[in-house]
């Protein structure tokens, strides 16, 4: 009798794949919703190959010829190239300052548990719940004092501090899932604390590290708020600041060029997501399902 079997639970396929009406209707709704997510992303492609004149007369027609002018213009006028270099520095800095401290701390919390480390663990865990918005102002004042204001480290150091908690949690649960025997064997072979960590455990945590690098890169690439408050000189503007600046200056009046800027600045995260969405979703959920 069950034409409609709920697929809740394990990965097993529902019995009986006969077409039924509710399933068809719901599937159509799901497709419409998915289109609602995707279609706006393709709109810039409709405009990016047009001149401004062409756009104002026929915004909706398919482009008659493929012109790359807008990309070139966006690159020059909005100075996306410079912005991209700055953004890449921020990304690399954020990765370098987030992932290693989190890996080290996560290892200790997984394998060297004592009352002292538990206390420190909660101090770091609590950081996961602190909203960055709250501390913007003292952060900026302090950065002025430390000569970090209006520098790229001024952006990626706080960014790292606000990311370490999450990744410490991930590394901690990852190291806990590794068998203890490995560390024991290493110790019997004469590897000290350092050797065991760097030569045995850290390489085993490769998957966690790949995930951390990927997700830290993506969030650093997209950052807007920290760059906005920390960076004031044009030469240090990150890509998102440049795009936002252009948006403020022209609104949507210069759509073709703006589309080009948008495509360039969104491309890396989109490509990474399309290639690695399985990983990215798993990593995003790993923290959420634990917490």
């Amino acid at each position: 009798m069950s034409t409609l079997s709920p697929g809740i639970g394990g990965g097993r396929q529902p019995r009986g794949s006969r077409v039924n009406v509710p399933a068809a209707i719901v599937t159509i709704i799901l497709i419409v919703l998915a289109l609602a997510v995707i279609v706006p992303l393709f709109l810039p492609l409709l405009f990016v190959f047009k001149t401004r004149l062409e756009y104002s007369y026929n915004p909706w027609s398919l482009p008659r010829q493929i012109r790359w002018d807008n990309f070139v213009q966006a690159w020059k006028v909005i100075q996306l190239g410079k912005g991209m270099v700055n953004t890449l520095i921020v990304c690399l800095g954020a990765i370098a300052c987030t992932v290693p401290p989190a890996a080290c701390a996560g290892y200790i919390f997984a394998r060297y548990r004592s009352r002292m480390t538990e206390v420190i663990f909660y101090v770091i865990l609590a950081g996961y719940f602190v909203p960055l918005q709250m501390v913007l102002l003292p952060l900026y004042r302090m950065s002025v004092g430390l000569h970090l204001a209006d520098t790229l480290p001024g952006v990626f150091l706080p960014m790292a501090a606000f990311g370490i908690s999450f990744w410490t949690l991930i590394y901690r649960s990852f190291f806990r899932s590794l068998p203890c025997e490995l560390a024991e064997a290493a110790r019997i072979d004469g590897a000290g604390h350092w050797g065991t960590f760097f030569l045995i455990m850290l390489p085993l945590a490769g998957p966690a590290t790949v995930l951390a690098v990927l997700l830290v890169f993506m969030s650093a690439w997209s950052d807007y708020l920290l760059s906005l408050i920390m960076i004031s000189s044009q030469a240090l503007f990150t890509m998102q600041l440049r795009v936002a600046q252009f948006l403020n200056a022209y609104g949507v009046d210069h759509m073709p060029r703006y589309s080009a800027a948008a495509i360039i600045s969104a491309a890396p995260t989109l490509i990474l997501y399309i290639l690695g969405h399985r990983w990215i979703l798993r990593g995003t959920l790993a923290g959420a399902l634990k917490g």
Partner: protein
Amino acid sequence: MSEIARTARGRAVFISLMLLPAVAALGVFMYYPIEETFRLSFMRSSGLGDAAFNGLANYQFLFGNDEFRAGLAHVFLWAFWSLVIQLPLAFFVSYSLILYRNRITKSLRAVYYLANILPSTITAMLGIFVFSNTNGVLAALARKISWTWLAKLDFIGDPTLAFWAVFFVATWMYTGFPIIYLMARMEQIPLEIREAAELDGAGGWRYARAIVLPMISYPLRILAVLMIVGSLKLFDLPYLMTKGGPGDATKTLGIILYNQGFVNWQYGSAAAVGVVIFLLSLVFTIAQFSWQRKGGEAE
């Protein structure tokens, strides 16, 4: 020194050095600024120098200030509508994806999270671009089918509509996370439960109401807390789309803090806004933890 003492010391040195970078980073860039936020919120300070202790004057100023009250109201409105619109939508999508497993729904799974990974500058741009009165997609389409009433609506410039335009874009961007989160949670429900339910004749949407909803009530509450805390932190989208305007129509606590601190250079009142954001997030986060403990016992 004895062998044991030496290894104990080596162990302590190892632990301290391994924890040092994380502890130092959080200490300098998180905990010290938190302390400063509280301290500054009681100071009358503008400019770079510190001024005198000011008691609760900054808080008095804020709560008597129309802009701040509007911001606070928007935060709670935003949270309310997130719970009423985004949460049921996420439940519908995630449950349907699991209930009707076929080739189409399987390939759709990753799509819903796509908007979430875009930089907010891009999302805001797409939002303006759809809703703009002069060149927007919606207005252009409306003109084409001569729905002049729709073409006339100024979603960005009208105070009532602006809130909804921003909220719509946020829903588009942020609902992906609740969807994948609920989906992952529902997949953890053991297969036997589903089979038992089916034997009892509870299939499809009855199964959702009778069994799935109660079983994911804890994840739903977590999402509710995340949505409320998210509203408290809201900055990028409304700031990029409308700068909080027109008037105060889309001001959020984040925007008010930014304006007070970095436009008006009123450190004291900006810090006070920070304290309000912090305390409200704290209340809801503690609520989440107390639920979590109960949820952990139940599981």
